[in-house]
């Protein structure tokens, strides 16, 4: 996939409230884990320990506004990615988390009404470039902000590092 469209399909694993901070997503005590794959073990460990063991590959986490506020710790986005989350959908994101997610190749989708229109178990289809979410279980459309073309490209490439690798390999 490159540039254009990117469509995801999967189920909602959890619907969370507002201001889900990065300490809740990934506790500070594990920040000395710098193998990104291993961060997945501690996803939501303090506040929502039930989410990670139940999370199936490609499932979505839905939240109200300001998801990922607080620390710049990239482990918060890495833990979601390596635990298998297909995307995070929230009414809004804290800016560093948003950039971290995209740079690691995990879509962060801004959808103001998603938390109200989704329940755990619902099946969704997300068109990232168009900014549209279909809740197939409830047969409703949820409007979302289209992902910036630059972000779509990063997500399609698997994140910033694969993107830079390709760019600099081509240049040399």
């Amino acid at each position, binding site marked *: 996939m490159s540039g254009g469209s990117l469509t995801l399909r999967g189920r909602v694993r959890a619907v969370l409230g*507002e*201001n889900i*901070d990065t*300490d*809740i997503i990934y*506790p*500070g*005590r594990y*920040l*000395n*884990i*710098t193998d*990104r794959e291993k961060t997945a073990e501690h996803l939501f460990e*303090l*506040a929502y320990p039930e989410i990670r063991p139940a999370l199936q590959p490609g499932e979505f986490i839905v939240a109200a*506004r*300001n998801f990922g*506020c*607080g*620390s*710049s*710790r*990239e482990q918060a*986005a890495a833990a979601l990615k390596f635990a298998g989350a297909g995307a995070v959908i929230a009414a*809004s994101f*804290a*800016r*560093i988390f948003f*950039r*971290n997610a995209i*740079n*690691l190749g995990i879509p962060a989708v801004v959808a103001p009404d998603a938390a109200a229109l989704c329940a755990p178990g619902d099946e969704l289809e997300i068109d990232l470039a168009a900014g549209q979410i279909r809740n197939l279980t409830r047969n409703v459309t949820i409007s979302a902000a289209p992902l*910036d073309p*630059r972000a779509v490209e990063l997500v399609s490439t698997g*994140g*910033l*590092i694969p993107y*830079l*690798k390709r760019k*600099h*390999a081509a240049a040399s």
Partner: protein
Amino acid sequence: MPMTLAEKILARASGRHSVSPDQVVVARVDLAMSHENADLVRKSFLQVGVPRVWDPSKIVIIFDHRVPAESEKTATTHKAIREFVAAQGIRNFYDVGRGGICHQVLPENGHVRPGMVLVGTDSHTTTHGAFGAFATGIGATEMAGVWTEGELWFKVPSTLRIAVEGEFRPWISAKDLILRIIGMLGAAGADYRAVEFDGSAIRRMTVASRMVLCNLAMEMGAKVAFTPVDEVLLDYLRPRTAEALEPIAPDPDAVYESTIELDASEDLWEPQVACPHSVDHVKPLSALGDVPVDQAVLGSCTNGRLEDLEIAAMVLAGRAVHPRTRLVVIPASQRIYRDAMRLGYLETLAAAGAMIAPPGCGPCVGVHQGILASGETCVSSTNRNFLGRMGSKDSLVYLASPAVVAASAVAGRLAHPASIVKEIPCPVEV
């Protein structure tokens, strides 16, 4: 076209005459700072496959989160970073005992100047807006991109102006002001925006107090925050750098998304406290009732500077930390540690029963030097009180000013400093 500070700096850094909010620009980066998470950056950078960083003179690495190494894991991380720094010729490296908290070490050593674009792999990088820099936090992977290319894309933020006039009442500090503002605006109240603090109350503040405002603006989501580039600031910077210092100011007719006006003497009657578990859960101290305190923490990139240790020493002089309470004091940098030692503040604090911890982040991020047990309550001069931030998920953290932390340590419960010290403190002179 008239521009705000954020717009001016991004215009220049992207080679444009002007920029406006929501425009996406690619800006050259003047300074790239990392702490222990430089190890994550290093791993990503090595994956890119480029042999050398773009400019080793523009990278600064400072160990602060886990100093000295508290575990073999951290020791291994520190070692890997030392080796990388040597291999890449990164000279601006502050090892254990040579620096302190990154946000204190950068300005102390003249790395930050007005007009710079500064990125750091730490959310509180907004602190450096107190030095007129467009300074913001980024993640480790993004920093690997900066190490590779020396530039980064930004969406130009709209700007929120906060004007504060009037005189602060006794015992009221920059911490109380910014907690009050965060309480008013909420944890997402300045999301994606630039914040410009100005007004006579701000211009009278010390550089250290201005840093508190820019540091905590992050907790309402700000991308960057600024206090004025004035003579107070230039006097601080001149002895620290040989580089030319360029005054920079917003244009008088710059366009702001909104302006908030506060009067320090009218709107801030008493100390403010951020209650568990969010920084925007702010109440005036008197509204909290009786809150016994197991631990008091004085330190961090928010409030571990000399004036903070000074006011704590004033409150604790000739008194003792309450038997049920532990007081942990962490000077923000090696330099502050030495100054506080020379001025007798550490002697006063230690004599009162405080434990003085080594310069660094201390227990703020919950990894060492004062972790809380289940059921414990802490009052802290730090910047976050999220669930489990300083230890057990069943512990409580209240955020307050250094004066309230010190008074609470004496009282063994949340306390107003005026209830401990009868004389009124002299305002800190700039």
